[in-house]
């Protein structure tokens, strides 16, 4: 039998296999062995499927430039983790007390008197505090959105995330207040 005839026979068997039918033995044992092996190749992953799914799951790995950098940064400070949540909560606490910290620094550098800084803190503290509460709400919204669905899981996650971020918020905010009080500014 010519090579071409053997290639045609194998191709006919493979055509049958790809179309989802069981191939019939050709009588050529060499071709039939290869055709049986080809049965295991049915359903071979489509080219690009693995890469597409990876890009969908972990976009930071595929993206380049600024969007890739942002995605990697988001991954690095993932709010799924307790440390990320604590850092974000602490950041919100720092935002709440920013006028206390900022006023203390300005006073220490000699740019403003204690009375002026005290008046500044008294006026602006409610605004900074409100801003920090908005930041905390946005933070918890994004954390819970990532946690997925399910009332029980969502509630549990809200308590857990709220406790971690809220504790860090309270500690940092209290520290900023204590600092300005220790300096006699508030």
């Amino acid at each position: 039998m010519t090579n071409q005839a053997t290639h045609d026979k194998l191709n006919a068997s493979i055509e049958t296999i790809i179309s989802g039918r069981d191939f019939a033995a050709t009588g050529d044992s060499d071709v039939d062995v290869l055709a049986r092996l080809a049965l295991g190749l049915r359903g071979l992953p489509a080219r690009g499927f693995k890469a597409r799914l990876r890009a969908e799951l972990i976009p930071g790995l595929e993206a380049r430039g600024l969007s890739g950098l942002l995605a990697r940064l988001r991954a690095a400070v993932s709010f799924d983790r307790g440390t990320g949540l604590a850092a974000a909560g602490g950041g919100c606490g720092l935002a709440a007390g920013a006028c206390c910290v900022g006023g203390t620094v300005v006073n220490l550098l000699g740019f403003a008197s204690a009375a002026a800084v005290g008046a500044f803190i008294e006026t602006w503290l409610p605004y900074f505090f409100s801003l920090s509460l908005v930041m905390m709400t946005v933070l918890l919204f994004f954390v819970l959105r990532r946690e997925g669905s399910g009332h029980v899981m969502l509630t549990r996650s809200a308590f857990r995330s709220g406790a971690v971020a809220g504790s860090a918020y309270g500690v940092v905010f209290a520290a900023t207040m204590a600092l300005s009080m220790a300096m006699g500014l508030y």
Partner: protein
Amino acid sequence: MLDAKQLEAEQRLVHSSQRDPSRFAQLYDRYFDRIYSFALTRTGNRAAAEDVTADTFRQAFENLPRFQWRGVPFSAWLFRIAANAAADYYQRSSREQVVPDIQVESDASWENRLIEVETRTHLFDLVKRLPNDQRRVIQMRFGEELSISEVARAMGRSEGAVKSLQHRAMETLRARVGDSHD
């Protein structure tokens, strides 16, 4: 089967993936072929296998922060998710009357299924190691399900040349499957 050292390395990788989700890519690359083969073996249908594979890795990625290491390979957890995703597929397909491309032996034992999954995974892996031209033909024929004439057009060759390449690719695979069994 992982030995103690490999298990320890996998534990470290899982923990680092929990801290840095981008590290999950390593777990994904390590287990993609097996999970896909498992899904294909369970569903017998390429589109369904893709759905089950995607569902499995999506759920694994989302639940990774809550995953607790219990001293067994990470794949055990992935297979459990995949088995549930396949069961969900069965429920849906029984309502929608999906016809499998591949015969699914629903009464096959777990041992036989595992052997089938490992055999298929190994074969898919061998395809990746074929010489470039042979790999392209096999990929287009079985992965994209293109006809010989479509493959010939895509490669800029005659149909006879593509059939010859296909035959050589299958011969190479047979030789390598034989080698790995020796």
